Each structure stands twice: as C-alpha cells, then as structure tokens.
C-alpha cells in the first residue's frame, strides 16, 4: 500500500533512456529478475543491437510489485519487461498498459511457440501481452534406487504406465509404505491438489467472470488430495530444509512438479545426484510457471523492442537458455537441439527431453482468471487445516467454498 502510493507521488527515478517521454531514445532498456533469461543470450543481444543500445537490468526483490509501482507512476518504465507466468493473468484487466504485440507482427511468429503457452499471454480482449520465455511442463521425479528397493517399477515408461491415474499412483505409495515404513510418496496435499487441478482447462473462475470453484473439477482435485491423506502416504512436510533432507535420505523418494523442479532437487539434495529419474506424471500433463517478455505501452520504439524480443526468444536462443539457465523452451523446435537432447547426469544419464517434450505438447489450452490466485488461498488454507489440525475434510471443503465465494464476491466475480 505504502509502496504503491509512493510510486504515484514520486514517480520514482527515471533510468537510462527508458520510455515515458515518447521521444527518440538512445538506449533500449529491459527489465528481468535474476535468472529470468540466459545471461549469455543477453550478452549476445547487447552486441547484436547497438542502435539503440540494449541495456538489460536485473531487478531484485519483488519484481511484480516494482513493475506495478512504476506503471502506476507512469514514468521510468522499461521498453521491454519480463512478466512472470503466475502474474500474467492478473495483467489481463490492465492489457491496455501493454503494446498489443500482434500489431508488431507477433502473429507471424506465433507458430514457433506452443499454443497453450501463447494463449496464456492473450488477454480476453485479444491483446497479445507477451511472448513466452519458458514453460514448466510437469512430470514425476523419483529416486530409482528407493523404488527398486521397494519393488516398484523403475523404468520411466513402465512407471508412467503403472501410474497413469492418481489411484494407481497412490496404490504404489501404499506398496512403498508397506515395504519401507516411514517412506512417503506424496509431499503434501497442496501438491496433489494443484497438480490435479493444473491438468484442467479452467480453474476457479471462468472466462465470463463466474465463480466455478464449487464445480466437479475442483472437488475432484480436493478429493484426490484427501485420498492421499487417508491412505497415510502424505509426508506432511512444508518446511524447505526438512524437504531437502527428506529427499536426500530417501524418505521422500518422489516429487510431482514442473521441469524446473529438477533444479530445486539438484540444489537441495546434491548428495542424491544420479539416483533420480523423470517419468510422465499421473493424471495428464499440466504446466506450472514459465514467463513472458512484454512491451509496456509507452516504450519509445516498440518496433525495435519487438525485434529484440523475437531475437532473444528464437528457438535457438531458447535452447541456449535451457543449457544456460534451465529455462525450458516454449518453442518445440528447440526440443530437437543438442542442448536439450543430451543426457543429464543428475538423472543418471536419462535424456529428460523424452519425457518433458511430449508432456509439453500435451498440455491443454487453459484459462487462468486474474482472480484465481486470491480465490485459491481458501482451498490451500483448508487443505493445510485438514493436514495439520485434523479438521474434518467435508467440513473443510464447505468452509473453503464459502470463503472462496466471499473472496470472489469481494473481487467482483459473480457467484
């Protein structure tokens, strides 16, 4: 609140030749958070685009808050900015703040990118807000050694076949628990709930701004999560340190998550290198995360900015982004390139693209509402309450829906 209002008043500093005035600028500024783009690609881009000179800035702290504040201030905006995947929907009502990239020829490069990812950056009014940097296709990460010990399938294809539904997957979890007591297949209920719901095509609010948080698809995700709890295969770990320790020790020999989770596992549990594998996750492919580059409305030369974006996000450069910064490309053409097809030592030499590639192309086009984030809180709160306080699941569901409805109402969604 304070931050935003200070922005309105002071307008914050103007940096470089960034937009605002609309005059001819000598530099082209780009905002990105740490690790959001490949440093090598950005360095090459700076050599490639010299007039106006491309100046990229790494913005620390809460990126979205800083972007919002600067937009509200109206001055000092960059010519190109990153927008995180989890934030893109919240910009739909503010699509006017961005240049419609279709007016700059985005429709001509659309075919290079995955449809469903492209659609995420298309506001309901048709404005193309951004071009995809990367995606987060989901998979099942698992410890081959622990699975072998418990007599579970260890081959990625065989495991994917044996655990194609959550019921099958949970059955493996029960088997694992019986063979190796104290070992869990599920990290927490929130993971299952968001994975199941993530494979749907709409979530809590539909395209017409109507609340659908009490529909069957949400209830199904809820019931699936509760099932894991009832079967006793839930580790109930929420703390990050414990989570890393559990993965290293093999107490938590599996994790469901997006491609970038491989990086988290590698940095959190480095001692388990070589023992992990990746398989297609149960219940269908979903996406978590993945960002965009966009051009704010007042950019000095949008044409030049678009030229830079389409260069940085070409399939070749997205492949380099994968090698350099583990950004999983949004361009299927990159999946054939060396950077992606080479074996990964952390996964025991597995070519993970064989799993992630087909998963990425199977993800359905989905509609995320600007209000989904705030509304989802009610469900996660109640799941946590069931998990840690033993609240009755049916009562918790009723409470979650009624809280979600009242939040939706407050946000102007019709209930």
């Amino acid at each position, binding site marked *: *609140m*304070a*931050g*935003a*209002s*200070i922005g*309105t*008043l*002071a307008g914050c500093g103007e940096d470089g030749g960034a937009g605002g005035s609309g005059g001819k600028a000598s530099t082209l500024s780009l905002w990105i958070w740490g690790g959001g783009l490949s440093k090598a690609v950005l360095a090459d881009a700076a050599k490639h685009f010299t007039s106006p000179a491309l100046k990229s800035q790494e913005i620390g702290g*809460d990126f*979205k*808050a800083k972007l*919002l*504040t600067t*937009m*509200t201030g109206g001055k000092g905006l960059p010519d190109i900015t990153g927008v995180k995947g989890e934030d893109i929907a*919240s910009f739909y*009502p*503010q699509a*006017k*703040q961005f240049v419609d990239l279709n007016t700059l020829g985005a429709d001509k490069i659309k075919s290079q990118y995955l449809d469903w990812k492209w659609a995420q950056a298309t506001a309901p009014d048709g404005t193309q807000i951004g071009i995809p940097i990367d995606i987060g296709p989901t998979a099942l990460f698992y410890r081959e050694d622990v699975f072998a010990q418990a007599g579970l399938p260890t081959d990625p294809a065989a495991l994917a076949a044996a655990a194609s539904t959550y019921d099958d997957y949970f059955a493996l979890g029960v088997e694992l628990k019986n063979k190796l007591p104290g070992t869990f297949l599920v990290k*927490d209920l*929130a993971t299952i709930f*968001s994975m199941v719901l993530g494979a749907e095509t709409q979530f809590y609010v539909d395209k017409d701004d109507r609340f659908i948080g009490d529909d069957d698809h949400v209830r199904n995700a809820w019931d699936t999560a509760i099932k894991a709890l009832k079967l006793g295969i839930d580790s*109930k*770990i*929420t*703390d*990050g*340190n*414990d*989570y890393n*320790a*559990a993965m290293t*020790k093999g*107490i938590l020999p599996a994790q469901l998550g997006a491609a970038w989770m491989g990086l988290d596992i590698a940095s959190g549990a480095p001692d388990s290198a070589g023992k992990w594998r990746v398989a297609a996750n149960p219940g269908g492919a979903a996406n*978590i995360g993945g960002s965009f580059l966009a051009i704010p409305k007042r950019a000095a030369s949008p044409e030049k900015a678009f030229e830079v974006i389409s260069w940085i996000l070409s399939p070749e450069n997205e492949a380099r982004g994968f090698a350099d910064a583990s950004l999983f490309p949004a361009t299927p053409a990159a999946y054939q390139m060396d950077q992606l097809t080479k074996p990964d030592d952390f996964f025991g030499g597995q070519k993970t693209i064989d799993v992630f590639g087909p998963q990425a192309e199977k993800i359905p086009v989905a509609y995320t509402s*600007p209000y989904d*984030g*705030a509304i*989802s*809180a009610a469900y*996660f*709160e109640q799941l*946590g*309450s069931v*998990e*840690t*306080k033993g609240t009755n699941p049916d009562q918790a569901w009723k*409470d979650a829906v009624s*809280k979600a409805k*009242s939040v939706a109402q*407050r*946000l*102007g969604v019709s209930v």
Partner: protein
Amino acid sequence: MTQPNVAIAVQEPAEHPLPRSGRRRRLRSVSGRRRPAFLRYWPQYLAISPFYILFAVFGLFPVLFSLYLSFHRWSGVGERKFVGLQQYKFLFKDHTFYLSLWNTVLIWAMSTVPMLFASLVLAALLHSVARAKGFYRMAFFIPNVTSVVAMAILFTMLFSSNFGLINVVLHWIHLPTYPWTNRPWGIRISIVALMTWQWVGYNAIIYLAGLQTIPQHLYEAAHLDGAGPIRTFFSITVPLLRPVILFTVVISTITGLQSFTEAQVMTGSNAAVNPNSGGPGQAGLTMVLYFYQQAFSYNDFGYGAAIAWGIFLIVSVFTLINWRLVARKED
C-alpha cells in the same frame, strides 16, 4: 494552528511580557505594518520544513491514501472502483483475519511474558557483575541489532525436523523429537523463541538502567534486616522498577502486535502456492503478514488497506488498555 503562537512566544518574550490576551492582539493591529505570521517567520518555517515535507510525503499521504483505498477495489494499476464499506464488511466476517489476530496475540503473550521476566533476572545478574560489564551488556544487546531475516533463517535451521540442532539435542538426551516447523504449535514456538532471543537483551539493558537508579542504601538496609537475594528482588527491585516495567510492556505490545518479519521468513517456504499464508495450519499468520499477503501477494490493495485499518483499531484498543493501566498505577 499552534505553531505561530509557539514561534511568537519564543521570539518575543521581552518585547511582549504580557500574557496572551486581547491586549496583545490590539497592539499588533495598531502597528499597521504587520504581515501575516507565515510571511514574517518564513526562515523558521523553512528551517523546520524538511521534516514536515518528508512526513507529509512518506507518512501522512500514505496513511490517508490507505484510508481512501480501503473504500475501493484496486489491483495496483488501472482504475479504482468505489465499493463503500464492502471491504470492512468482509473483514468483519473474515475468519482468517480473526485467526491472524489470535495468532498475533498468542505469539505476543507467549514471547512477552517469559521474556520480560527473563530480562529482569538477566538485568539483576548484570547489575551484580563486577568484571567485564561492558562486554556482557554488549553481548546481550547484539541480538537486537542483528538482521532479523538472518536470525530467522538461522532459527528455521535450528528448529528443522530432520537435522535441526534442537532435535539432535532432544534425541541425544533420549527425548522424543518433534517436527517443529511442520506443525502449528511447533511453528509458533519457533517464532516465539526467535522473538524472545531478539528482545530479551534489549529489555535487560533498559531494566539495568532502571536498576542503577535504585539507591544502594535500600539494599543495604534490606541486607541488615536479614532479607536474602530473592526476597530483596521481589520486595525492593520489582516495586521500584514498576514504571520501567510498564514502559517495556507498552513497547513490547506495540512491537508484538506488529510482528511480521519473523513469521514471514520462518513460514515463507511454501511460496509456490498460496504464498505468505503463515506456515502449517496458518499458525504463523500474524495480522501484518495477512495484510502483506492480501496487498502484495494477491494485489488486493483495497482489502489490504482495510486490514491495515483493522490492525490500527486493535492496536488502539491495546494502547488504551495499557494507558489505563499506567494511569491507574500512577495515582
């Protein structure tokens, strides 16, 4: 406007020794060439202006703007939609807000009561130390000036279930271990431990300053009357320290009700879904953390502002209670 009068009183005591009255006002109007006070004293106003300008921009304006926002729906950009009292109506019925109030009060009580007692004991010990006084005082004060974020990360590691030092020690002395950071009461205790660690030395130093004002002869008299150290502590030290104790209670209430960083850092690990929700069972969700989540994680600035004003009301009530207690004790 009281400022002009103050300025006059300071400036011209010799010229106008009369009390402020109608007479003085007449004197002024008679002189004829008097300009408005503001123009006459502009250098003085200029000299004090930096504070008022900074306060207006960074203090007053945000406060008023947040009041304005609390009657609107606003995502941070775009137009603000006036919604009247809707945000407050929601706040009044919001279970999560009441949970955050309960958490805040619980964490405050669990940390403040034992902490102030420990501070008092520590101050009494510090007071009787003969050598290396400066070292001990500094050592106890250091936690208060150390970065809270750094300490919160350290405490999360200490309380971590699988390899945290606390559980290692518990295991070592054959007590059952506990998943502190993954259970509602565990996370509260972790936060309480951090807050106690952070403030116990600060309060001890304040008590120490109070102790040094108690005349030594009272202790000597007590000693002659045969009172032991514990009796002396409760019959002389505590009663004479009452104003200082009340001061620390008031300060601890204000900081305790606004606690945020400790909980935010210690429970921020599940940031992917529902960020800043306060850890397991939301047991670490304090009022200010809830405000932060709504305003900055979900960009619901209108509701965030309403929560902030709810916190303001609650802190006001506590301040009133404190004030009544202090006033009664001084009668």
